[in-house]
């Protein structure tokens, strides 16, 4: 049994159904994703079928089931970003990274996600890469921004 998952479970001694989501959130904060093994362990602890837990986790946008890439790219796709051209930026990102939102590149370098709104509409469209923000992004800038991470990652 994975010791780290166990530590998290121990924080929820009651083991009731309503602690399921906080447990999954803690595991994802720690591991970056929900592994099959973790889901099975949580199921055993809460006495729930792991299929049911998987069903719940897939319902919510927060949970992911594979490790995130080395560089996690998040594009804001709120209404304001959309009217200022986030759709084109998205297409360009998909083309450049060759993945769709929610996926990770095969070499594990990049993962890509959409966010409903980051709360900085005055700087739209914007991308967040590993917590760093790139604002007022135009489709033409995408290549350069991504390349800067490829180079930075190899150093």
């Amino acid at each position: 049994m994975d010791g780290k998952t166990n530590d998290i479970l121990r924080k929820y001694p009651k083991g009731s159904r309503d602690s399921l989501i906080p447990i999954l959130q803690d595991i994802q904060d720690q591991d970056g994703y929900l592994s099959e093994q973790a889901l099975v362990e949580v199921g055993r602890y809460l006495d729930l079928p792991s299929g049911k837990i998987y069903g719940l986790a897939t319902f919510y946008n927060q949970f992911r089931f594979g490790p995130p890439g080395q560089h996690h790219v998040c594009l804001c796709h709120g209404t304001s970003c959309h009217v200022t051209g986030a759709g084109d930026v998205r297409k360009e990102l998909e083309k450049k990274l060759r993945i769709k939102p929610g996926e990770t590149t095969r070499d594990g370098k990049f993962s890509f996600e959409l966010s409903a709104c980051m709360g900085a509409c005055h700087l739209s469209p914007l991308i967040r890469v590993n917590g760093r923000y790139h604002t007022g992004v135009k489709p033409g800038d995408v290549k350069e921004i991504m390349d800067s991470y490829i180079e930075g990652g190899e150093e």
Partner: protein
Amino acid sequence: METRTHIPVAKDYLKDSVLLNESVDLPSDVEKVLRFVRREKVKYPVVFVGTGSSGLISGAGETLDQVKRYLGDRDIKAEVVETGSTGYCTMEPVMEVQMPGKTRVAFRQVTGDKVPFLLDGVFNNMIPDVQVLGQHRNPSLEVWKDVPFIDELPFFSIQLRNLLRNWGRISPLSIEEYIATGGYRSYLKTIRSYTHDEVCDIVERSGLQGRGGGGFLTGKKWKVAHTVIADQRYLLCNADESDPGGFANRAMIESDPHRLIEGVMIAAYAIGTSKAFIYIRNDYNTAISRLEEAIRQARDYGLLGHDVFGSGFNIEIAVRKGPGAFVCGEETAMISSIEGKRGMPRPKPPYPAVSGLFGKPTVVNNVETLSNVPAIFENGPDWFRSIGSESARGTKVLVLSGRIVNQGIIEVPLGTVVKDIIFGAGEGIPGKKGFKAIQIGGPSGGFLTGENIDTPYDFESLEAEGVYMGSGGMVVLDEGCCIIDTVRYFMDFIQKESCGKCIPCREGTRRMLEVYENITRRPVDENGHTTLERFKGVMQLESLAEVIRDTSLCGLGQKAPNPVISSLRYFRNDYEEHIFDRKCSAGVCKELRLFRIDVDKCTGCTVCAPKCPVSAIIGTRHHPFFIVEDKCTGCGICYDVCKFSAISVI
């Protein structure tokens, strides 16, 4: 240099002299101390940096570092304070400086590199002309010459800031400063001198309506939950603001978390519960950490916990992180999510106020609704009734974004005319393009056009125009935006976020999205009756929208067709243009675009031809090239690469 976020005033002093003092006006010696806490009088210069999340994205973190470095390098005795956002997002990062004896002055767009220049100026009693935003009003201090007052700026002059009054002024991480602005006194007055029923009555009398979009009388809701006999009740605060383009609640928590907590406590007392949850979206990191810190401080002061200030009232507030589902903004879906299930709504009745979380009476209130509560008890229900219009009392917090000069968060009395908001506070549209529409209320809202922009902003007037207020988002569209594309975007969003429980919403929104995808792209295959199918879809759009509206289970589904119905009502021409002419005059719908090469301008440089993904460009070197219309997919790559502007959109 000195950096502190807390003013060293003894906790017991604030408790005894301020919180437990029941008189309306505090004695002058106490008031003097509070003036010091509020920084109305300062001994040393104070530098404030707005570090809400929109400020941080604009670079406020770097600004803060530079300020600290500047003061440290020069060994200047000054205080650095982190505040929340001022709401004026376009001007961020905002830095404010208060010199001893002078009014507080604000600077706009202060990125890290501009800090030394600005601070050099202010510390030498000179305000640089550039980048000054304005000064705050304070009659007891000397004003800066030739510096406008902040409340005279168009962005602020239209506003009535009750909920937002502490924004950018006090540190959100300091309970002392919140108490010094009158905070937590309403709460203690409530639990010490009113009964549960009286609290519900006062709120009902004030006319406060739910700010989440429903517009139900808050006091009435509380009363229902309070009168149901149960051994446990719950209060839920909905901070799961997942609307694209809506971030007012987030900024409210980041800039003034104690106001929300005080509202939660009063509401919990009113319905007679000891357990409250704040359900906040998981990716609001700054807001979550500030909220948790504020709860910790309140507990430290004895405002939270067992037997608060000897009143016999017990209260605990738990923060639950919403794992990200738009539908969880619906109250029954949120309840399911807190219970550890998929966030799917349940049929109503029974209403949550009768049977909600774990089968117990539960009140679900929005962040903005609860933040309104402390002021009602501070100034009385009649004061609250006096603000706003006949049908809707109080103020509303709005998010201005899109193609508008001043973007940010504002608070206006309900009933303010939309035009005044857009062209007053927003100062109109940047650039030469004309105004087209305002999208109000996020994915479940609708459009206002130039014809009905004079509508007052309140629940009834907007509904008469087919628009729902929603969470207060206002996205301005100019002529460069395509309405059809915007509706398609909303349908795409709703279709993804539909929980899948009821068929009209799950299947219907997908069908609607398909119709929009069909009319925003060129026919794929003319042989397979695609044109006919396309027309069939469009013909059914209106009736499909009505079916979804009438038969969906929850608010998400019922309001999902709003953008469709609203756009069909006001923008029929745009639809016709897309359907019959297969043209998008705004040039947004990429697949409808066709390109043509201007023979006079083309030099035959051959840059475009190899770049074309469908080989639609033909020609020979040094002679003008030609685009084969039937092959062209309108991707626009050739348009972007042409150095001679020889390619144009038809």
